[in-house]
């Protein structure tokens, strides 16, 4: 036994600082694949913040953008676990890469005769788009990063939000590289 006194405790994986991560998963477009991903994240104790899914240019391949909070090791573990799914072709953590991130939100804002013009002015300044005008409300479409949409929502909350729906972020890395071309072979 080494003579010196007790060593420091061994570091535990996953005990680091938590931050928002963005994972891009390229998956086979098969029935149940969304269920597999969601089930795995639940079973492994990861909490998904948002999830956006659609097929890619190829009909048999889908792309998921998953945002979640966790420390770097825990999220790496989530990505490795996703990789174990037979239908998952490629998983990439793009958190630290230069990316384009966009999210779309529809917000149904309370708007009366007395404040409608004020609301519309605000929407215009926020680069939102009015897509429906009705007696007592407007529906506004905004796109932007998650925090831009957060800011818009906070701004119009004073008027009263009747309904809010957000797509969750979709993300693409800048530059000419392609995750879909790089799927595991």
């Amino acid at each position, binding site marked *: 036994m*080494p003579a010196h006194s007790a060593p420091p*405790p*061994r570091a535990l994986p996953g005990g680091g600082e938590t931050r928002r991560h963005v994972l891009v998963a390229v998956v086979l477009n098969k029935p149940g694949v969304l*269920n597999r991903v969601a089930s795995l994240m639940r*079973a492994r104790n990861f909490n998904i913040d948002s999830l956006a899914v659609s097929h890619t240019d190829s009909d048999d391949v889908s792309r998921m953008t998953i945002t979640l909070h966790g420390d770097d*090791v825990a999220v790496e*573990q989530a990505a490795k676990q996703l990789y174990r*799914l*037979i239908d998952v072709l490629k998983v990439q953590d793009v958190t630290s890469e230069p990316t384009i991130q966009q999210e779309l939100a529809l917000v149904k804002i309370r708007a009366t005769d007395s404040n409608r013009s004020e609301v519309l002015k605000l929407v215009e300044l926020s680069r939102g788009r009015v897509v429906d005008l009705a007696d007592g409300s407007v529906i506004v479409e905004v796109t932007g990063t998650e925090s831009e949409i957060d800011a818009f929502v906070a701004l119009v909350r004073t008027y009263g939000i009747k309904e809010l729906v957000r797509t969750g972020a979709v993300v693409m890395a800048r530059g000419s590289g392609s995750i879909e071309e790089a799927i595991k072979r």
Partner: protein
Amino acid sequence: MTITKGDPAHPPSPVARAATERATPPPTRRSHVPNEGSAEAAAVERARKGMLHEGRELKRTRIGADVLCEALLRQGVEVIFSYPGGVILPLYDVLGDYPELRHVLVRHEQGGAHAADGYARVTGRVGVCMGTSGPGATNLVTGIGTALLDSVPMVAITGNVPSALIGKDAFQEIDINGITLPMTKHNYLVRDADDLPRVVAEAFHIARTGRPGPVHIDITKDALQQETRAEHPTDAEIVAGLPGFRPNLDGHGRQLKLAAAEIAAARRPVILAGHGVLHAEAWDDLRAFAEKTQIPVAWTLLGIGVIDETHPLAYGYMGMHGWKHVNRAIQSADLLIAIGMRFDDRVTGNVRTYAPYARIVHVDIDPAEIGKNVAVEVPIVGDAGRVLRALTPLVDPVDPATRADYFAQLTEWKADSVASSWHGSGAWRDGLLSADYVIERIGELTEHEATYVADVGQNQMWLARYAGFRHPNTHVSSGGLGTMGFSVPAAMGAALGRPDRETWAITGDGGFQMTFQELMTLVADHIPVKIALLDNKKLGMIRQWQEIIYAGNYHSANLPGPDFAKLADAFGIPAFRARTPGEVDDAIRAAQAVDGPALIWFEIAEEQNVFPMMPAGKGLSDLIEKWGGAEE
């Protein structure tokens, strides 16, 4: 329609086949088939060859159920453990046309799943179990989970209601696909017979490739009945159809060099060998590596058998109920070389105090296992065998003399630890029969050549510690899921997989009472499992925890059982009884002399504990070795 059906009451077995192929079978080989060597067995052999090599002509249309049988035969399946039911009857309607597929009618689907598991663990091949929809499928679930947690290659097949009825809560309909999704490596729902050849081939490929695991195939009744001309895919087509499944088998060259440097610098290294070494059939590679580097080998519960326990570098079984000397070596090591193991909490205890002086090289075929439970210095993703074969040439041979001090200390620790936890006289307190002695005698009298199948709890730990394992794949144990009731049905499968070895089911009275319905399967199918029932009339491990951790608050630890001799007799199984150390050897020999299954009822001391013991949440240095002032 003229169909000659096979006689399912007299199925052929691997034994019958092997026996006809070999001129002089070794004397230890046993037959499970009453008519071995008969004209009928020869006819079956001809039929099998005709099936495999010349194709076969069905004098009726080919339906999904035929395709399933063909696909199983193409995968080399020789036995399936199954139970019929409404929606899987189309398959049973054609099974008689495939006498080469031995069908073992289990008495409960859970038994079938464990049997497939035991078969897979001793043969390294894919085990197959089947059941019907609804309760048949849910009964398989415990066995599938057991296989998942221990990475056992298995294909579980269930029938489901006709596709038009799916989602309508039809009779015996349950969303079994949803149930098995998180507890399989992959699963399928097949609604079209044309998909069956591809799905079955993929399922076997996935089950046995990379890190093995269970795959579930759910087939609707109409798919089993549907006519089809679908052809079976080639191996290349199967791989091409699974672009998302490309396990990385070879360790990265740079990582191998880093590992070699760690090994060269280490003064107190220990190898931690796990189930992955057995999956990779890399026991010879492990021994060569250990001998060249002169590094002692410790093993996990599922790693038992990776090295002959009498080998000078074989150090012992690690973890919660492992040997104290092994845990001491780990706690003082400066390098752990972990191969095909996953730092389970039963192995590490409290990770913060685990192996505090050690750097870690971790070899595993599953990238997700690396860095999951402990942070490691050198991760290597790859097959244990391939990595060992690539790593061994990179390390310099070590002269054992340079490790003299280290080895001397290891030897001293081992002598001390073995002396303090062994009842060589056979008697625990008050002359009561000691369980470790029983296990040791079974190991001795079977000359360490049998297959030993544990149940879960104290019996499992006694077996792991005291049987003395010499060969790979002779120890079968539900490690990850810890499934009580595993032993007897898993031994059933193990005996069919390795009929050339004696098969012993080591079980406690608790686990035995969970699945003893399979005794009837043993009798009906002439499967010669010897059952060592360690009866302490308690849930022993529950009692032990309640004594030590819950201040003696015994609740539900007493477990009244039946008269086990009468029970065995009712099944037509010879039973023997031992209550004192002096009766042990005779009982074991008597059971060995029985041509067929036999049971030994060992009435052991009721309050014997398994020591040492690491309390949950504590570290490997916090072993409890005695309790209540008495040496155990």
